[in-house]
């Protein structure tokens, strides 16, 4: 029966069409931002080509990319200390943030003594303290780490305190009725239930850690991406400077991605 055959073929065709429409719908969250970025870069390239702007003022993306690949070993070598110091500052911030949060949640007196001072400390523009850290700790990684830690730990602290206190009132009553100590409640109930909050804090902190280390490198360092960016611009090597920024974006993406991955794994555990 040829007509039935044709009909079923037509149906299949529309099915395939629908499927491709659906695939497209699902891909738009990725396609759209990528297309926007590509359009922007092409516009930038075209602007450099047609306006004749000096490459020291604004190098075209193609030149930045060329520099990136040509000087990759150099850029990579500078990215290692930046990555390691960001990671170290982030981990220290997690420890300090969680530790202080535990102290503040465990003891009302400690909270009264510490909390207003911690908030006050945060009101100081942190960059203003960087020269002091150099005076106290020298120009080594200690002063950069301290500076980055100082920038980084506060969101971690605030998020963790919120998480530790976000426990059902009846759950706390149950704990008290079965004679749980405050430390038992902290480790068996409060910290596990705070996990989603802690990861929100971590996602903010990891980005701040990179900012802190880069600013630290601007001020004191002889190596690292912050140093390379500053050094390249001072030599009017704007393309190299931008290539270092590209590397910095990659470092940031990897570090943030690692935290986001940890969050997904821990969320699965937390929700059961």
């Amino acid at each position, binding site marked *: 029966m040829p007509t039935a055959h044709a009909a079923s073929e037509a149906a299949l065709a529309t099915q395939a069409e629908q499927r491709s429409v659906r695939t497209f719908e699902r891909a738009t969250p990725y396609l759209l931002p990528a297309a926007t970025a590509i359009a922007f870069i092409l516009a930038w390239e075209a602007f450099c080509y047609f306006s004749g702007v000096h490459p020291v003022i604004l190098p075209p993306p193609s030149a930045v990319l060329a520099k990136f690949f040509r000087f990759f070993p150099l850029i990579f070598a500078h990215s290692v200390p930046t990555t390691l110091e960001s990671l170290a500052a982030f981990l220290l911030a997690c420890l300090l943030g969680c530790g202080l949060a535990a102290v503040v949640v465990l003891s009302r007196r400690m909270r009264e003594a510490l909390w207003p001072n911690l908030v006050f400390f945060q009101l100081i523009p942190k960059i203003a303290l960087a020269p002091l850290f150099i005076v106290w700790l020298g120009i080594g990684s200690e002063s950069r780490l301290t500076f980055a830690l100082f920038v980084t730990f506060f969101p971690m602290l605030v998020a963790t305190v919120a998480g530790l206190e976000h426990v059902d009132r*009846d*759950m706390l009553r*149950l704990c*008290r*009725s079965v*004679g749980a100590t405050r430390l038992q409640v902290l480790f*068996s109930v409060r910290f*596990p*239930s705070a996990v989603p909050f802690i990861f929100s804090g971590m996602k903010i902190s990891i980005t701040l850690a990179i900012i802190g280390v880069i600013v630290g490198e601007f001020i004191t360092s002889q190596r690292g991406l912050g140093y390379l960016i500053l050094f390249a611009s001072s030599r009017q090597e704007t393309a190299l400077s931008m290539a270092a920024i590209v590397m910095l974006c990659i470092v940031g993406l990897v570090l943030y991605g690692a935290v986001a991955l940890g969050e997904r794994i821990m969320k699965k555990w937390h929700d*059961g």
Partner: protein
Amino acid sequence: MYVRCARVGKVYATGRSAVQAIKSVDLGVREGEFVSLLGPSGCGKSTLLMIVAGLETATSGAVTVAGRPMDEPRTDIGIMFQDPTLLPWRSILENVLFPIRMMRRPIPTYRSRALELLAEVGLGDFAEHRPRHLSGGMRQRAAICRALVHEPRLLLMDEPFSALDAITRDEMNIALLRMWERHKITALFVTHSIREAVFLSDRVLVMNGRPSTIIADVRIPFARPREFAIGDTPEFNALCGALRDKIGEAYRAAGTEVH
């Protein structure tokens, strides 16, 4: 009397003014008895239960449980709340064993008891599941097991089934009665459902007013073990009606008293 409250009162100090939540409550619960505190929301019955649990302190009067004054939480008490309050990252079995872990008692010793309790409420096959995979009624069954795991002598329940749908609630009432009969435990149950109170209890204490007092102490004569069919008998409905009238009377009386 296993539980005794003598002239228990509670005043909340809020800034300059003070709110009296409970006026003066006298009550007694015999060993092995099932007693319900029945009253509308906000009448102070939950507060009273928390005082009996040692989780809140009375501002006047005294509470004794098993002859000893109840001035701080004690482990001879099991407790249930409106929500099951299970830890989502722990299995049902681990949740049931939570009190044992907090009390630092040996977990292997209580493991078999926990599994037995779970089997008794029909959760034998769910010991290793996470709470998320269980229905609301099943979670509350697990909470019953958790309240009983450390062999308490008194079970305190704060509207434990009021967040469940009516059908599940009926099932839970039967499940609770079976556990109560089997474990021969003294029970104090807070509810705002008249039928639930009548179905479960040996005695219903009606609470009302603000500040609240106990306005009636009604004996429920139905034989045990009870089946759900007693809810259809005229005697049952007459008793519910009488209780409803008592609560209504108290409302009207309060209406004329309060300006």
